[in-house]
C-alpha cells in the first residue's frame, strides 16, 4: 500500500471520516476500469452500471472500517468481482448486446467486420463459461492481473486460478473453434 499524499489509501481513510470530496476523487480515478470489468463480465450496460454504482456505494458504506493493509485496488477488485459474481448467480441468462452494423465500403471494412464477428463470438463464448472461470479470464486478459492478483480478487489460491484458467481456455477454444481464433488479428 502507498501512504504518499493523495494515494488511494489515504483518500479512503478520509472517506471513512466523512470526506465526500475524497470519495469523489476515488470515483474519478477508478470508475473506468471498474466499468470495463463489470461490462466485460456481464455483457450488459445496464447491469454493469448497476454493479459499478453498487460497488462504489459499498465502498463508501465500508469506509469507516477500511484499514490500508493491502492496496486499495486489491480491496476494490474484491468488491467488484464479488458483486459481478453475485449478479451472475441471480441472473442466469446474460443478455448479449450486439454491436450495430452499419454498411461501410471504405478500405479495411472487411477486417473491421471480421473483428466484430470475432468480438460477438467471444462475447457468446465468455457468457457460456461458468461465472468464476469467466471472471478469471476477464481479470487475466483484460485487466492483466497475475495469478496472485486474481486469487486475491476471487479469494482463492493461485493454484486454483491456474486450474480455472486452464479449464476456461479449453472451453473457449472449443466454443470459438479454430476459425474464430485464427481469423482474429495477431
Amino acid at each position, binding site marked *: 500500500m502507498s501512504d504518499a499524499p493523495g494515494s488511494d489509501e489515504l483518500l479512503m481513510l478520509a472517506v471513512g471520516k466523512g470526506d465526500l470530496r475524497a470519495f469523489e476523487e476515488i470515483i474519478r480515478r477508478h470508475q473506468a476500469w471498474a466499468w470495463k470489468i463489470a461490462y466485460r463480465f456481464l455483457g450488459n450496460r445496464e447491469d454493469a452500471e448497476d454493479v459499478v454504482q453498487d460497488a462504489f456505494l459499498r465502498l463508501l*458504506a465500508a469506509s469507516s472500517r477500511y484499514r490500508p493493509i493491502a492496496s486499495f485496488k486489491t480491496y476494490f477488485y474484491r468488491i467488484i468481482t464479488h458483486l459481478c459474481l453475485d449478479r451472475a448467480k441471480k441472473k442466469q441468462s446474460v443478455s448479449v448486446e450486439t454491436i450495430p452494423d452499419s454498411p461501410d465500403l471504405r478500405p479495411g471494412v472487411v477486417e473491421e467486420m471480421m473483428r466484430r464477428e470475432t468480438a460477438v463470438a467471444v462475447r457468446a463464448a465468455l457468457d457460456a463459461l461458468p461465472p468464476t472461470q469467466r471472471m478469471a479470464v476477464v481479470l487475466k486478459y483484460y485487466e492483466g492481473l497475475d495469478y496472485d492478483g486474481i486469487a486475491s480478487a476471487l479469494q482463492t489460491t493461485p493454484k486454483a486460478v*491456474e486450474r480455472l484458467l486452464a479449464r476456461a481456455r479449453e472451453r473457449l477454444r472449443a466454443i470459438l473453434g479454430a476459425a474464430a481464433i485464427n481469423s482474429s488479428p495477431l
Partner: protein
Amino acid sequence: MPCRFKYRHRLGAYLDGELNPQESEAIAKHLADCATCSAALEEIRRLVPALLTLDAPPLPSGLAVRILAEARRRTALGTPERISVSPGFWPPHRWLQDLSVPMRVAACAVVLLAFVLGLTMGREVSLFGSPRGIAPIEESLDGFEWFSPTPPLSLGSAYLTMASASRDIEEVPQ
C-alpha cells in the same frame, strides 16, 4: 497420439510466466521436441488476440455524478449507518458498532450494572423513599465516611443536607 507430458496441463501457466524456473525449463525443453504440445501452446497463444477483440463501450456519461448523488442522498438519510456527513459528526451508536462482540457484551453489562447500582444507591440516598433509612447507614459507616454512598463534601451529601433542611422547615408547626 496424444502427448503424456506431465506438464501438458500447465502450458497456459507457462505462457503466462507463472511457473518456477525448473518447471519452465522442463517445458521449454519438451516443446523443442514435441510438435503436439507446441501446437497446443500456439492455440493458447492465439486465443489472446481473439479475446482482445471484445471492447468495452465508453464509460456511461454522468456515471460518477449519479453515484455521488446517490451517496449524498444515502448520507443525508443515514442509510449507510457508518458514514458521517462531516468529520465532527459522530452517530450515537457508532462507538458500539465499532466494538467486537465480546466488547459489546461487556459494554452492555457495564451499563446494566451502572443502572442497577444507580437504582440501589438512589434508594439509599432518597429522603422521601426511605425516611428512616439514613440514620442507621450513617451509624454503620462511622469512621468510613468516604466509603458511604454520600461521602462528605460530595454532591449527594450536599443534597441530603439541603433536603433535610427543607423538610425541617416544612415540619415546623405553623
